[in-house]
Structure formats: structure tokens, C-alpha cells
């Protein structure tokens, strides 16, 4: 694939630039960016155009994301081309130049199936990768496989990648590495398995521990029972030692008690009960005496106070009269004021009545009360009258306004324009418009005709016709395609023969050149001796010998002769040389017989080739004749058509063009016709419209264009429409005016009718309110207010009168009450002193009440004392009864001394208590045995040996306790051991840990294997790649390297270093230089040579792609830069190379190469 064009439409700093990369074959294109930014952006643009703009891009600073556009034109090695535009996006990023959508995979074929990453990796190189490549060669000690693989894949850091794989793998596992994950895991697993085994508790172990626990329990049971037996015996002895004295004491006490059988055992509270009875009797008797005395005193007091007086019973009447007296005094003082107020109201009423109805007496004024009830109605009617007046006035105003308007309308009507009919005009406009934008269409048609005419003329010229031929194109008898094909075949045959002859001639020339060179070489090496040379040498030798023999045998001086034959020198010395020379010639003749034969062969070959050349030249002449014959036939065939026909190879294209010309000519005819049709139609429309306009406005100016005519007509139509609108508006307003006048008249009449009706109602409502008949609303309302005031004053005067009468009635009732009370008390009273009498009775009544209180208290006390006397008597009797009962209890005579009896009883009680105490002690010390059991036990014991046995038992028990403690310990231990077996299983925890370790190990093993296999695969692939590609790559890279190093190296070769193939540079003098013996710059050149060789190799087998070079020559001096450019130009014969640079010296070098067809310089 070749990039013909790279369009930097909108990308990074670019707007609309284009890189034309179509020149060259395919050529080295040096793209110079004046600054690094421009160059890098262009590089990115190139990649983005081919493979899409990355999601995140720094190239959208000038153009927004959605406006980014780059594009180009590519040419496949098969010759097909594609033009495209790339936009930013996730899909459908590939467009045709007209921005229609292209298949996203449209470029795939052109990219030879290379992915974006691969393209970047393999089909491009920059300075950093060049330097890295050189460094990798050094670090790998020139490892041949690695170097070739790195160059053949474009992978940089191959060496680092390999060592990373290895180090990652060995971080996981190494045969003797203890710290590695896998080694550690395996070790941990082993430890865990041991731990698990140790933590496992077997069933037998469990059974053993359980048996131990059971045995301990049995031992404890046995020992406990023995101990209990000993304890029992020991406690029996101890008990007897305790109870024996008590048993003896109890016996003595029982004997004493037997002596007191006749004594009565009195209850313990006997004494207390007797003393209480005696005290109660004494107290009761004293109280009785005192009560009698008090009763006598009270009886005397009652007698002294005498009976209750009558006045006490009249308390209510006395108090009521006293209250009434106060009220009566206040009423008498109010009465004169009330009389005054009543008179004042009456005179007010009289005055008001005299103002409005002087003919009425005050007593008759009640008749006016009827108007108070009508007040609301009268007020409503008064308001109604005002509203009716207003309505009438408004109707009158409306009438006047309507009349005024009528006049105005009449004036306007006289100024309206006359009526015009626009119907015909509208029809004409519509008809003209139906043709659409006819003039536009006509102009387009005219342009088409113009364009087609120009194209036809150009076609005519291109085909070599005179312009006049245009009309008779169809009649021309152009040779048919078949005729052309026939000529082509004939021509091709002749041309093929010419080419074959020519290439044969070139081959022969080359062969002859080579033969000449070889012959030359043989000659220059040393002239090959001939048989004649040998004969000459031998004759010289024989001559010398003859001279020598002559000198020796005949003693002649032969110096002169020798000089003649052999040149200067003594004969004795010259002879051996002559012998040697002859031998040498003989030797050489024999030794170089091969050379001789070769030379002979070469000479013979050269002769043969010379003959072949002559033959070739003869065929050439023959071919020329054939070609001339074809040419003249060709011209003859074309004569009727063209005086100078196209060449045979161009004829097919000429014919295609001619056919196209015919098509265009036809199209032109059609277009001309349609233009004519449009013109006619437009003319007609203009005429129609103009006719309609003139009918309406005769003085209109005619216009030439349909559009202008239509605009004027339309304007006229709008004018007429506006006039019609004004007329109809005037008619509508006139109608409205007539209606308004009628409405005003109607309203006036209605208002008058309502006023009449109102007058009737008013007269009814106000009749009798004022002296006359016709009352005005305002007067009627004022009179109504005054009458209300009169009636209110009269009502108040009547109220005062009623109160005065009440006061008089109360005074009468008071006198009656006074008289009634005096009668009940048996007293007499005068009317005029009634007040003083009431006061005196009230005072006396208070004194009588105090005496009555003292009387009541004395009577109460008397009654209470009588009750006390009865109660004390009762108490005396009860106490005497208790004492009699106590004697009965003590079974003694009524006169016996109860104190003595009580003392004997107390003695008996004391002895009984003593016995009880001894028995209680016995029960406590006897461990719950009955007295009989204790006595029986005491009877059966040997008191003398008791203590000895007790000592023995103590010792036995101590022993027993020790045994028991030991047994209990044993049981606790066994139980604890068993208890440990319950709960979580340590073994299962270890098992879980084992599985976790295995899981990790499994992952680590897979990781290790993955890395290890990757490393092995890579190593083997590298080696394999070397074996398959070593020879061709080294050969080609060697050539490139020689050029780049300015022939300081001759070629590249493989060598062995520790059984490892390595890369060696060979100097022209045969010296072999390993990679580490080269300078850094030379190693960079070495890597570049290898990369270029790999790129060429790839182009040979698959679609070649452009090789993108980013400033790799920057570190080269001018001479080497030139050499580098030469090498790139050489490779650019195989595939396009685009070299981006921002260094002027690189551009200068490229320009200095002066090979404009192969090295093309561009500027961004």
C-alpha cells in the first residue's frame, strides 16, 4: 500500500493542509516539520487516519472533538485506490470524502491486515527505539537470534522482557530457593500435615481417657463409704461423752417435782389479771362520787334561768323589718327626683310635636306609631327614586351620542373609493405560480446547456476534432472496438518481440561485459604464458648453455654475445637465471593450463555472443518493418475520421472518450430543448399577468421578467383587497350605529314607566305622615326621625310614673307588717313612731338570744352527768365479778389470800423449766436420738475404753481423707482431659489451613508454569526465527550496513561464541568485529540495517506498507546522514518510506541528493 495523500483537515495545529505523497515509486518522502510539535502532530495524524483517533487525544485543542477530521488517499499494490476521511468516534469513524458513511473495515485490505499496535511496532521506528535496539544488541552480546527477532518484530526491550519473565518465574520457584512462594508453600504444607497428625485424637485414646475417668469415680465411691463408717463410730463416742452428765441431772429434777403434786399451777398472767381487777374497782368507785356532786350543781342553775320568752320565736320577723326599714328610708329620698325627670320628658315630646304636627295633641300622638313600622319601606323607596332618575338620564345621553355618530358615518361614506374586481388577476397569478420557480429553473437549464457545450467542445478538442465536427459526430465511422483489439494484439506481438530482443541484447551485453571483465582479470593477474613464450625461454637457456660451453671448452670470450642474448651481467650468473626462467615458464604453462583453457573459453564465448548480437540486430530490423506496416494500416483506417489518429495503445481510451462525447452531445441536445420549452412558457405567463393588470390599472408600466411582473401583480391584488376590507368595515359600523339609536330610545321609555309606578307606591306609604298630601322623600325621612323622638320621650315619662307608684305601695306594706308584729308581742305602736319601735324591738331581741344560749348549755351538761353515773356503776359490778372468778381458778375460799397461792405456783413452774432445759440440751447433744435411745445407748457402753477408741478413730480418718483427695484429683484430671476433647477440632483447623495452602500453591504453580512456558516458547521461537531467516536477513542487512557505515564494514556474518550464534561485522580487511567492539552509533546503524532488511522481507511476501521513520538520523553526521538517506531511498524502491524530521540538516541532505523522482521533500 502506498499513501498518496494525507489530508490534515482539522487535527492538532492543522487546518486544511494536505501532504501529497503520490510522487516517487514508491519513494522516500522526507516530511520536514519546522518544530517538533508540527512533526509529532503529523505523525499522530498519520496513525490516526489509518487506525482511528484515540478516545483520549491531545489533538483537539484547536478543533473540537466532533470537528476533528483527517483523511487521505491510499493505493493498494494491486492498483486500486481509496479516498477516505476519518472522524473521531467509537464507530462509523470512516467516511467517504463527501462525508457519507464508509464501512469501518474498508481500509483493512489496504493495511494488509496489520493491527494498529503491530503497525506502530513493525512499520515504524523512532530515535528512542533505534537507540534501544542498539543497546539491546550490546546487552545481549550480539546474540544473533535476539537481534534478528527484535528487528523482525519491531519489539524493543525484547531482552528486558525475557529477563522479566525469567525473574518473575524464579520469584515464585527455584530448585534451591527457600524464600520462594512455591518452595515455602511446599514446606508449610509438610509442617501442617505433621501438625494435623499430632492434633488428631484417635478413638482408642478417647476410650483410654474415659476408662481412667470411670476408674477414678469407682475408687472415690469405695473410699467414701469406708470413711462414713468410721465417722459414724467416732460421733457415737463423742455423743455419749456429751450426754451422760445431762441424763443424770434430769433424773434428780424429776424426783424433786414429784414432791409438789398438790400445788395448783396457775397461769402465768394470773397475778396481772388480779391486780388489774382490783385497780379498776377502786377507780370506778371514786368517779361515781364526783359525778353525783356535779349533777346537783347543774340542776340548781337550770332552775335559776327560768323559761324561754316569746320574742326569741320572732327572730325572722324582727330581722326582716329591720332590713325593710333601711330600704324604705332610701326610697323616700329618691321619689322627688323621679317626678322631675318625668315632667322633663313630657315637655320635650310636646315641643317636637308642635314643630311637625301642630294640629295634634300629645295624647293623640300614639296614632303616629304606625310610621315607625314603615320606616324601612320608605327609606328603600326614597333610594329607588334616585336610581330611576339616573337610568332615565343615561338613556337620554345614549340617544344624543347615536345621532352624532350617524352624521360622521355619512361623511366617511362619501370618501370611499369605487369597487374593483380582482378575479381575473388572481387566476393569472396562480397560473404563473404553478410553474414553480420557473425562471430559476430556466437559468439552471441554461447553465447546464453551457456546461455541456463546454464539455463537448473540450471533448472534441481532446479527441482532436475540429469544432465544426460537433454536428456530424454520429456520422463519423470510428474504427470499432474489435478493429482496435485486433490492432492491439498485432502491435503487442511486435512490441513483445522488440522487448524480448532488447532484453536479450541487454543480457548479451551484460554477459559480454562480464566476459571482458573476466578476461581482463585473467590478464591483469599476470599475462598467461603461451607455448611461444616457453619456446623463447628455452632457446634463451640453450643459447646461454652454448655460450658457456664455448667459453669453457674453447676458452672464448663470450661476454659480448651473452650481452646480446641475455642482457647485462656475467654469464655465470645469467645462465642459472635463464634456466630458472625457462623452468618457470614451463611450470606456469602447466600450472595455469586451467587459466589458459578458461581464457580460451572466454574468448570463444565472446565471439559466440558477438554472433548472437548480430542475429538480434537482424531481428530488430525485421520487427521495425512490421511495426511500420501496422502503423500505416492503422493510419489508413483512421483517415476518414482523423488526420492524426491516436496511437494503438491509446485507441481504446480514445474510443471510450469518443463514446462519452456522443453521450454528452445527446445530453446537450436534450438540455437545449428543455431550455426552449421553459422560455416559451415564461413568455406566455408574463403576457397573461400583464393583461390582467392592465385591465385594472391601464397606466401600469410593463416589466420584462416574470418574477418582477408577478411581484407587481401581487402588490395590486393586495391593494384591491385592502380597499374591499375598508368598505365592508364602514358598512359594519353603520349597522351598529342604527342599532345604538334604537336601544337608547327603548331605555328612555322603560325608565319613565318605572318612575310612574314608583309614585303610586310612595303615596301609599307616606299618606298621613305630614299635614299635606304630597311629601318629598327628604321631608318624609326628616319627619319620620322627629316622630320617633316624640314617641321615645313619651315612653320614658311613663317609666318614671310607674316607679313613683311602686315607692308609695312599699310604704303601705311596711306599716302593715309593723302592726302585725306588735299585735303578736302584745305591744302597741303609733304610725309616726314606727321607725323607732322597729329599732327598739331589734335591740331587745338580741339580748333575749344571749340568755337562751346559757339555758341550753346547762341542760346539756345535766344530761351528760346522768349518763356518767350509770356507766361507773356498771364498772364496779364488772370488777367484782372478775375477782370472784380468779378465786375459783385458784380453787381457794372467797376470803383466802390470793398472793400466797400465787407464790407456790411460781415455785412449781421454776422446777418444770429446769427439767425442760436439761431435756433441750439432751436433744441438742444427742444428735436427734430419743431419750429412751440415749439411755439405752448409755447403758450399753464401756465408759473406761471410750477415749482410747476415739483416738484410734481420729488417726484412721486422717489416712482416709488423704486417699480420698488423691482419688478425687485423679478423677478431675481424667475429666479435664476428656473435656479438652470436646469443642473445636484442632485437626480440622489444620486441615482447613492445608487446603488454603494448597489453593495458594495451586495458583502459584500455574503462575510459575505460565511464565516459564512463556519464556521457553519465546526462546525457542527466537531460535527458530533465526534459523529460518538468518541467511537472507544477514545478507541484505550486511549490504545496507556497508552503505550506512560508508564501507567501513564490508558485510555481516554469524559466528559462534560459547556455542551461541552471535552477530559479527566484517571489515573490508577481513577483521571480524563483535557488537561490543562497535561504537554506539555503529550499533544503532546495525540495528537500523537489520530492521530495514526485515521490512523488505515482509514486503516481499505480503502487502507492503509504508515504513514511518521518526527522526532516526539526528545523531548521524552529515556524511552518515547522507548515507542513511541513500539506504532509505534504496529500500523505498520496495515500499514507501515516510521520514518525519524537524532537523534542517536532514532536509538539506535530502535535497542535496538531487533525486527528485525518488527522494521528495515536503514541508509542513
Amino acid at each position, binding site marked *: 500500500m502506498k499513501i498518496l495523500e494525507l489530508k490534515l483537515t482539522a487535527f492538532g495545529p492543522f487546518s486544511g493542509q494536505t501532504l501529497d505523497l503520490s510522487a516517487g515509486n514508491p519513494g522516500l518522502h522526507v516530511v520536514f516539520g519546522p518544530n517538533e510539535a508540527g512533526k509529532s502532530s503529523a505523525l499522530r495524524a498519520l496513525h490516526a487516519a489509518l487506525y482511528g483517533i484515540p478516545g483520549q487525544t491531545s489533538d483537539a485543542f484547536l478543533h473540537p472533538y466532533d470537528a476533528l477530521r483527517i483523511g487521505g488517499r491510499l493505493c493498494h499494490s494491486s492498483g486500486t485506490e481509496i479516498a477516505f476521511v476519518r472522524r473521531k468516534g467509537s464507530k462509523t469513524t470512516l467516511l467517504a470524502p463527501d462525508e457519507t458513511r464508509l464501512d469501518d473495515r474498508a481500509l483493512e485490505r489496504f493495511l494488509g491486515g496489520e493491527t494498529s499496535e503491530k503497525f506502530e*511496532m*513493525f512499520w515504524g521506528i523512532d530515535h528512542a527505539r533505534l537507540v534501544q535496539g542498539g543497546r539491546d544488541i550490546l546487552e545481549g552480546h550480539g546474540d544473533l537470534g535476539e537481534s534478528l527477532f527484535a528487528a523482525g*518484530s519491531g519489539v524493543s*526491550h525484547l531482552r528486558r522482557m525475557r529477563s522479566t519473565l525469567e525473574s518473575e518465574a524464579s520469584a515464585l520457584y527455584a530448585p534451591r530457593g527457600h524464600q520462594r512462594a512455591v518452595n515455602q508453600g*511446599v514446606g508449610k504444607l509438610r509442617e501442617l500435615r505433621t501438625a494435623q497428625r499430632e492434633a488428631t485424637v484417635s478413638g482408642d485414646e478417647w476410650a483410654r481417657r474415659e476408662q481412667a475417668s470411670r476408674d477414678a469415680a469407682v475408687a472415690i465411691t469405695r473410699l467414701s463409704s469406708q470413711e462414713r463408717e468410721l465417722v459414724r463410730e467416732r460421733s457415737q463416742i463423742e455423743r455419749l461423752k456429751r450426754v451422760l452428765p445431762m441424763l443424770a441431772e434430769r433424773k434428780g429434777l424429776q424426783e424433786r417435782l414429784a414432791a409438789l403434786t398438790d400445788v395448783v399451777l396457775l397461769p402465768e398472767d394470773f397475778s396481772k389479771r388480779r391486780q388489774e381487777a382490783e385497780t379498776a374497782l377502786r377507780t370506778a368507785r371514786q368517779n361515781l362520787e364526783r359525778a353525783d356532786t356535779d349533777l346537783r350543781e347543774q340542776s340548781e342553775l337550770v332552775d335559776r334561768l327560768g323559761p324561754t320568752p316569746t320574742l326569741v320565736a320572732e327572730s325572722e320577723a324582727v330581722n326582716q323589718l329591720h332590713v325593710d326599714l333601711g330600704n324604705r328610708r332610701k326610697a323616700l329620698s329618691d321619689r322627688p327626683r323621679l317626678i322631675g325627670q318625668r315632667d322633663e320628658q313630657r315637655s320635650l315630646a310636646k315641643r317636637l310635636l308642635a314643630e311637625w304636627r301642630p294640629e295634634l295633641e300629645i295624647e293623640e300622638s300614639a296614632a303616629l306609631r304606625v310610621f315607625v313600622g314603615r320606616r324601612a319601606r320608605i327609606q328603600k323607596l326614597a333610594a329607588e327614586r334616585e336610581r330611576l332618575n339616573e337610568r332615565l338620564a343615561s338613556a337620554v345621553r345614549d340617544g344624543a351620542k347615536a345621532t352624532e355618530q350617524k352624521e360622521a358615518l355619512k361623511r366617511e361614506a362619501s370618501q370611499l373609493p369605487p369597487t374593483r374586481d380582482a378575479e381575473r388577476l388572481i387566476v393569472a397569478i396562480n397560473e404563473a405560480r404553478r410553474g414553480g420557480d420557473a425562471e430559476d429553473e430556466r437559468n439552471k437549464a441554461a447553465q447546464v446547456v453551457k456546461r455541456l457545450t463546454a464539455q463537448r467542445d473540450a471533448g472534441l478538442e481532446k479527441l482532436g476534432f475540429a469544432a465544426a465536427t460537433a454536428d456530424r459526430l454520429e456520422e463519423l465511422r470510428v474504427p470499432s472496438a474489435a478493429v482496435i483489439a485486433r490492432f492491439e494484439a498485432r502491435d503487442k506481438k511486435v512490441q513483445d518481440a522488440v522487448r524480448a530482443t532488447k532484453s536479450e541484447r541487454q543480457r548479451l551485453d551484460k554477459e559480454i561485459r562480464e566476459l571482458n571483465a573476466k578476461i581482463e582479470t585473467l590478464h591483469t593477474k599476470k599475462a598467461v604464458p603461451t607455448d611461444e613464450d616457453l619456446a623463447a625461454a628455452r632457446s634463451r637457456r640453450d643459447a646461454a648453455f652454448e655460450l658457456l660451453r664455448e667459453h669453457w671448452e674453447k676458452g672464448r670470450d663470450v661476454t659480448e654475445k651473452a650481452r646480446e642474448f641475455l642482457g647485462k651481467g656475467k654469464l655465470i650468473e645469467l645462465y642459472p637465471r635463464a634456466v630458472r626462467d625457462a623452468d618457470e615458464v614451463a611450470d606456469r604453462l602447466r600450472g595455469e593450463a586451467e587459466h589458459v583453457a578458461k581464457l580460451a573459453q572466454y574468448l570463444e564465448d565472446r565471439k559466440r555472443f558477438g554472433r548472437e548480437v548480430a542475429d538480434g540486430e537482424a531481428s530488430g530490423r525485421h520487427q521495425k518493418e512490421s511495426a511500420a506496416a501496422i502503423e500505416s494500416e492503422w493510419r489508413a483506417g483512421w483517415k476518414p475520421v482523423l488526420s492524426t489518429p491516436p496511437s494503438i495503445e491509446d485507441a481504446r481510451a480514445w474510443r471510450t472518450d469518443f463514446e462519452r462525447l456522443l453521450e454528452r452531445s445527446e445530453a446537450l441536445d436534450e438540455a437545449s430543448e428543455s431550455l426552449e420549452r421553459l422560455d416559451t412558457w415564461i413568455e406566455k405567463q408574463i403576457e397573461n399577468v400583464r393583461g390582467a393588470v392592465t385591465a385594472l390599472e391601464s397606466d401600469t408600466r410593463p416589466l420584462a421578467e416574470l418574477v418582477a411582473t408577478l411581484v407587481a401583480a401581487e402588490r395590486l391584488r393586495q391593494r384591491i383587497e385592502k380597499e374591499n376590507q375598508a368598505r365592508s368595515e364602514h358598512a359594519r359600523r353603520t349597522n351598529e350605529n342604527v342599532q345604538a339609536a334604537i336601544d337608547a330610545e327603548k331605555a328612555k321609555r322603560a325608565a319613565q314607566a318605572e318612575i310612574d309606578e314608583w309614585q303610586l307606591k310612595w303615596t301609599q306609604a307616606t299618606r298621613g305622615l305630614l299635614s299635606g298630601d304630597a311629601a318629598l322623600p327628604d321631608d318624609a325621612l326628616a319627619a319620620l326621625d322627629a316622630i320617633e323622638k316624640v314617641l321615645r320621650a313619651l315612653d320614658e315619662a311613663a317609666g318614671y310614673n310607674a316607679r313613683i307608684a311602686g315607692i308609695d305601695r312599699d310604704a303601705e306594706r311596711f306599716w302593715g307588717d309593723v302592726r302585725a308584729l306588735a299585735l303578736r308581742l302584745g305591744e302597741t305602736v303609733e304610725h309616726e313612731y314606727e321607725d323607732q319601735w322597729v329599732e327598739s324591738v331589734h335591740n331587745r331581741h338580741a339580748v333575749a338570744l344571749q340568755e337562751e344560749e346559757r339555758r341550753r348549755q346547762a341542760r346539756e351538761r345535766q344530761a351528760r352527768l346522768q349518763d356518767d353515773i350509770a356507766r361507773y356503776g356498771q364498772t364496779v359490778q364488772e370488777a367484782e365479778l372478775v375477782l370472784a372468778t380468779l378465786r375459783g381458778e385458784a380453787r381457794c375460799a372467797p376470803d383466802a389470800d390470793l398472793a400466797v397461792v400465787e407464790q407456790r405456783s411460781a415455785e412449781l413452774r421454776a422446777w418444770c423449766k429446769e427439767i425442760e432445759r436439761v431435756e433441750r440440751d439432751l436433744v441438742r447433744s444427742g444428735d436427734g436420738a430419743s431419750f429412751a435411745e440415749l439411755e439405752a445407748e448409755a447403758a450399753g457402753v464401756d465408759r473406761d475404753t471410750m477415749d482410747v477408741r476415739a483416738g484410734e478413730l481420729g488417726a484412721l480418718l486422717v489416712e482416709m481423707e488423704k486417699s480420698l483427695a488423691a482419688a478425687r484429683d485423679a478423677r478431675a484430671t481424667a475429666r479435664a482431659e476428656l473435656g479438652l476433647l470436646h469443642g473445636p477440632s484442632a485437626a480440622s483447623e489444620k486441615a482447613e489451613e492445608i487446603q488454603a495452602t494448597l489453593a495458594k500453591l495451586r495458583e502459584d504453580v500455574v503462575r510459575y508454569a505460565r511464565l516459564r512456558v512463556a519464556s521457553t516458547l519465546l526462546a525457542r521461537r527466537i531460535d527458530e526465527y533465526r534459523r529460518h531467516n538468518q541467511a537472507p536477513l544477514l545478507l541484505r542487512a550486511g549490504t545496507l550496513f556497508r552503505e550506512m557505515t560508508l564501507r567501513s564494514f564490508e558485510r555481516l556474518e554469524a559466528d559462534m561464541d560459547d556455542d551461541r550464534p552471535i552477530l559479527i561485522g566484517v571489515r573490508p580487511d577481513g577483521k571480524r568485529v563483535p557488537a561490543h567492539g562497535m561504537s554506539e552509533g555503529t550499533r544503532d546503524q546495525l540495528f537500523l540495517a537489520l530492521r530495514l532488511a526485515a521490512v523488505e522481507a*515482509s514486503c516481499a511476501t505480503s502487502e507492503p506498507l509504508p515504513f514511518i521513520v521518526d527522526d532516526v538520523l539526528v545523531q548521524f553526521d552529515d556524511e552518515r546522514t547522507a548515507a542513511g538517506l541513500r539506504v532509505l531511498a534504496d529500500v523505498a524502491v520496495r515500499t514507501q518510506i515516510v521520514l518525519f524530521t524537524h532537523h534542517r540538516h536532514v532536509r538539506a541532505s535530502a535535497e542535496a541528493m538531487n533525486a527528485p523522482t525518488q527522494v521528495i521533500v515536503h514541508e509542513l
Partner: protein
Amino acid sequence: MFRFLHAADVHLDSPLIGLDRYESAPVDAVRSATRRAFENLVGLAIDEEVAFVLLAGDLYDGDWKDYRTGLFFVEQMAKLREAQIPVFVVAGNHDAASQLTKNLRPPDNVHFFSTKKPETRFVEAFDVAVHGQGYATREITADLAAAYPAADGRLFHVGLLHTSLDGRPGHAPYAPTSSQLLAQKGYHYWALGHVHKREVVSQDPWIVFPGNLQGRHVRETGPKGCTLVTVENGAVKQVEERPVDVLRWAVSRIDGEGASSTGEVLDRVAHAIASEADRSDGRALAVRVEVCGPVACHDEIASDPDRWTQEVRALAAGVGSADVWIENVRFATKRLTDLAQLATRDDAIGSLIRDIAAAEGNPAEIDALRASLADIRGVLPRDLLDGEDAVDPHSPETLARIVVEARELLLARIVRQGSVS
């Protein structure tokens, strides 16, 4: 009306397999999982006041010797005894091999059926007859059910049997029998064990594998537990699955197609893990993550799968409501461009891919790869060389998988190295 519980394949104290204890792994959440699941079973029996509990074999792992495990079983049975719940047990193939069964003295509410001949026990309060026979040896190839007595028609009959029935993939064919034969016995319910996946084989009569009580590795996914059966008027009225597991296993496949970055892939992974965690009913979750599909960031992932595994694990610590343990992360993503496309050109990369593809069928290559792994293979314990989770680097399957992974690793690194520099 009464209810009973049916469980099987308890495998007490059997460890969980495949859980690497990486740093943020919720180790405590899954400790003693089988024990806690069994405690849940006992608790459920007490809460539901069941009439009896059936254990259809494989209480322990066959090669498990720690007696503490047996004691734990006895303690749990004692709790059921307090609640007056009888327990019927048949020994399975694992129990037959186990030494634990021999010395163990379970409380008197637990009955181990004879291993010599079929035996019948009655639960008189509910008119139930339970028939069963345990395994005397590890490998029973006879049809034990054939000798079980026929039902007499008066009682509710339950058959307790540890069997592979007519064969279940992944399970040894022990005590083989057929649904037809079981149906012919006239029982109401066949309580089976041995198959770890829950299955209702038939509803007339009911033939049920309750599955194991607690999943122990990633091949045992989903809820695990026991079966609660309700019986009314002498007939099965309801059969319910009751999960008692404390840790769920899940495999989560995430399709990365369309994801533009590793961040987006991780987001999808987080989302998938969170929704798995939501499904685990608050239990701890062990999940295997498998990422697949063509993704733009394939090379970034394939060049360092270990790093992305760590990323996923870190991610899991922060998502969802439950404790999440990432069992493993498998990356099977594809690059957007076809590998074959890269292989077409005759250059170093093309030949690398072609050669690796060819290497898979080339005995000399295989031998060379094996030789490079011989060292590590020599130190690996047996567990890693045998069995279902084996990673024997010499086995053809493992080697094939590793070669594919290695190829992707290599290509990804080459491509990244090439385009990064």
C-alpha cells in the same frame, strides 16, 4: 400432622477446598463451616419441633480420624435428645471406612441401622416405620434396597438409603438401585443420600436427595441444606428445601464485551459480585470470577493476570453486604482483533503465533515445555498432581491451558512493549 427432617452427606469437619487465604479474605466467616451448618440443622429440628431426623449417610470423611469430630456429633445429638427427637442414621461409604464410628457411643435417641441386613424401627407416637441398612464396607455394589421389607399399609413408611441410584455423574456407583424398585416397596418417602446435588427424583412416591449440608468447593454452588417434610393423614403434604449452609459457593461469569477500559471491566465485576452477594442471604460467599468476551483492554489484562486478580480481590472486600471470598479469578478475555489476522504475515510476530499454534501438536515442543516444568513438578505434593483440582504441569489438559495462557501473556507483553516504548 407431623414433620421430619431429612439430611445427608454432612462430612463433618471436612475442609473447604480452594480458598487461598489472601490478605483481605474473610477467614473467620467460614471457619468450621460444616460444624456450623450441622448446628443449624439441629437448631432447625428443635425450632420446627420435628418428629424425627433422618441422616442418610456420610457423616464423616472416610479418612478422617480425629475423635473430636465424633464428640461434636454426640453433643449435637444430645441436644436433640433433650428435645425428645429421635435420630435415624445409616452409614454411608465414607462412614464405613471411618474409624470414628467404631468407638462412638451416641445418646439413646440415635439409632444406627444395622450394616448386615435391613432393619425397621418405629416411631410409635406418629405411626411411622423407618427402614434402613448401613454400609459395612466402603464399596457396596449390591442393591441394598432390594432386601428392604415391603410396606404393610397401616403405617407411614420411610426408607433410608445411601445410594447412587441408577448412576449420577461425579459420584461413585454405590448400592445401585432403581426408582422402579423403590416405588415397588410401597413406602411413602425414600430419604436418600450420597449425591451432593439436591434432587427430587420422584413425587410418587417421594424419592429425594437433599444434597449435602454445606458446599465444600466451587463445583458445589448454590443453596445447600436439608429437606423438611410435612406429613398429614398418613401422606406427604409438603416437601421444603431448607438451607442451613454458612458459606455459599458461586461462579460468576462476566462478559466484558463493549467495556472500553479495565476500570469498566472491574466495575462490571464489582456489580456481578455484589449481586451474587445479595443472593447469598447474608451468608459468606466464595465466588469464582470468570471474565470473558472480546475487550479493548485484553492485552493490559493478559500481560499481568496476577495483578488483575489482586485488583478483583481488593474490590471484593468492599462490595455487597456479605463477606466475599474470591476463590479464583480466570481471565478468558479475547483481543478485539483476530489472532489469526496477526498470524498471516511472514514476520517475527506472525511466525511466533503460528509456531505456538503448531507447537501444541508437536511432540518435540511438548517435551521441551515439559522439561522446563520438570523441576517444579518434582516438588509438588500428591494433592496437586491428582484429583479434580490437580495442576500437574505434565498432564495434557493442564499443559494445554498453560500454553494458551502463556501465549496470551507473551503476545500481550510484546504488543504492549512494542506500543508503549
